[in-house]
């Protein structure tokens, strides 16, 4: 990464002594200024909370001094690379605010863009089944099913139910917490009963006790799932060391980025054959898979075609103009190749491609 110019650092310091530390992770002044403002608001909230507590205990409390201390500490941590979202405790995912915790991957805006786009296509679709079922593998914070539910809430003629699957208990706990925060009182239109999270290992052989098929059977969740989504670990070993940001490598769980058992062998594609096999098993009509880039997207598209799916690739911003054909596959939108969208049977009509 190029060094920050001394004059930029000097200028930043003259504006606010806390800014130079933030420039290291942020790189640009305007983004550092934004982060400082958000951290400042957060410090204010924390200080207020303590102040209220102090009032109850009838002890004196200097809100302002405390706030300064909190802010300095937050800035210090951010300067060392802690993701801003872990410090603030949440991230915006589409129209939702999703809670995040150390040990679980922070949801990304590209994932939100493709999930929103998929839901908006389906929202317009005719002939949707009365009950639409979505299975999200490698669900992490649970962001994909929660946003999908939220976006589909206006389709009153369709009951959407979702299941999120992850191996990590930590992720499942967070996902359930998010469900209860988002679903409670139906604030965002997410019905608490319609979304569930269970633990299973997507990579296990079919007959292992914690394999996905076994778990689904055991939980009475077997049978058909109309839509399957997954943002599985997809970072190759080489990319892990060369392309991930420092704050990702140092602070986010490696198991969310790479197949954990043998990372040294990982070319990044480990999960896709398994997921596509599951997709056929549950008779999914639409499959949305996030990928690292166009190259991986084309490989995954090949696998999907082998499994008798039709395929397009969406870029980061799928709802913007732009279309080309690469390696025989249609690629839509702007940005990096980001998602492989597969369909069969009724799926094509739901997506509006037929």
């Amino acid at each position, binding site marked *: 990464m190029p060094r920050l110019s001394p004059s930029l650092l000097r200028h930043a310091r003259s*504006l*606010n002594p806390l*800014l130079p530390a933030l420039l290291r992770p*942020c*790189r640009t002044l*305007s*983004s*550092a*200024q*934004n*982060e*400082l*403002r*958000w951290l*400042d608001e957060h410090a204010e909230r924390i200080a207020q909370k303590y102040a209220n507590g102090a009032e109850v205990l009838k002890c004196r409390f200097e809100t302002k001094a405390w706030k300064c201390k909190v802010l300095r500490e937050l800035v210090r941590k951010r300067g060392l690379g802690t*993701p*801003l*979202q872990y410090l*603030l405790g949440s*991230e*915006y995912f*589409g*129209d939702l*605010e999703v809670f995040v915790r150390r040990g679980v*991957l*922070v949801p*990304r*805006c*590209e*994932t939100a863009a493709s999930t929103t786009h998929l839901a908006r296509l389906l929202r317009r679709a005719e002939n949707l089944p009365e009950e639409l079922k979505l299975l999200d593998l490698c669900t992490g914070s649970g962001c994909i099913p929660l946003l999908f539910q939220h976006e589909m809430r206006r389709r009153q003629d369709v009951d959407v139910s979702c299941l999120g699957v992850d191996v990590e208990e930590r992720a499942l706990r967070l996902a359930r917490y998010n469900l209860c925060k988002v679903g409670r009182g139906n604030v965002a239109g997410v019905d608490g009963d319609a979304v569930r999270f269970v633990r299973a290992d997507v990579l296990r052989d079919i007959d292992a006790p914690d394999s996905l098929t076994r778990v689904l059977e055991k939980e009475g969740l077997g049978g058909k799932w109309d839509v399957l989504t997954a*943002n599985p*670990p*997809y*970072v190759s070993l080489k*990319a892990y060391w060369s*392309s*991930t*940001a420092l*704050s*990702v490598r140092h602070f*986010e769980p490696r198991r*969310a*980025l790479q197949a954990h058992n043998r990372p040294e062998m990982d070319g990044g594609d480990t999960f896709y054959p398994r997921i596509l096999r599951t997709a056929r098993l549950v008779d999914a009509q639409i499959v949305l898979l*996030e*990928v*690292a*880039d166009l190259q991986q997207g084309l490989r995954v598209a090949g696998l999907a075609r082998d499994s008798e799916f039709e395929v397009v690739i969406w870029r*980061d*911003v799928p709802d*913007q103009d732009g279309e080309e054909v690469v390696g025989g596959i249609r690629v839509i939108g702007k*940005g*990096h190749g*980001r998602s492989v969208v597969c369909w069969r049977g009724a799926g094509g009509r739901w997506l509006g491609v037929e």
Partner: protein
Amino acid sequence: MTPAPWICRSCLLHISRPLFRRLIRLQSTESISPGLLARARSIAIEHKQLTDKLANGFDSKAAKKLGEYSPVIRALQDWDKANESVSELTSLIHDSTTDPELRELAADDLEASRSQLINASQSLTTSLIPVHPFAHLPCLIEIRPGAGGSEASIFAADLLRMYQGFCNRNNYRATLLKFEYTNGTQESGIPLTEAILEIDAPNAYGMLRSEAGVHRVQRVPVTESKGRVHTSAVSVLVLPSIQENTLGEENFDDPESDYYVDPKEVRVDIMRARGAGGQHVNTTDSAVRLTHIPTNTVVSIQDSRSQPKNREKAWRLLRSRLAQARREKREEEVVAMRRSVVGVAKMGRGDKVRTYNWGQQRVTDHRSGMTVHDLDDVMEGGETLDKIMESVRSWLIEKDVETLIAENAAAKQ
């Protein structure tokens, strides 16, 4: 939803009372100018025709027009009634056959009826002033430092606080749509590079549009060591806030409407992650920039951590700017015509409208000519600010009435 222009009409009437006493004295007549009366009569005829038309089936354009005319009709009815009783009483008094007791009673009544007629004339005149089509909308106040360096930025922050105080006191919901302090945080006394305050109260645009213009400050800046008084300026822009729920949907889809923006003509730039994106990086950049290609109008919003929220704010801002620009362009011709008729003062963004003088602790508005001395109260957005703003609105109405009368006279020639 149909906007309700009469709400703001009644507020105009309310604020115009004291002014009218002045105006009437000026004209030394208790009645309305014949030209305006004729205009009101022709509106009444049209109103009648529209009512008949509506009886035969609904027509939303006619219904809207009807709504706009109804204050005139009401005012005209009041005027007719008052006028009738004045002439009846007068003839009674002048009639030699009237018995003395009755005559005395009539004389008492005449006084009351005369003042009723004066009131009715005033109401009728104001009801004829065309209502600003955006008056009922919420508004955006954009504050930007002009000439005067850092002192201007500090004064910009002062003005922002003034408007926030004003809204607070009046219970108007005010949210900062965008604000850029030069050092990234938001604290008092910190210079401001730009702020956009959204005021979400019915009629906010009608009430605050006269704040637009250049606000000038004269004081010794904190940074000035020699104690010299500096003059700096801050420009204030007031735009109607165009939100999807303030207007019926049709206004957005109708290419004829001021609010219409063709999405195809807008380039959306989302600040995408640097490098590979996706799982590789963890970006916090949620900025959204919209460019309206035909007019090269650019808005960019990055205040919220939520990209959809930034996008929504950016669209709102873009719509407001474009609608304002279109309207200004259309009005230019009208204004040029009016100016040739009477010397209507401009009220554009480039004009110096008010001076805040610290040394003398006074605020002077250059349009209404009002000077107040409680500077602190003004800067806190207190009632003294209300007083100045009211004087400007009255001044505006005065100008409008003059124009109306002059136009009428010109049309007759």
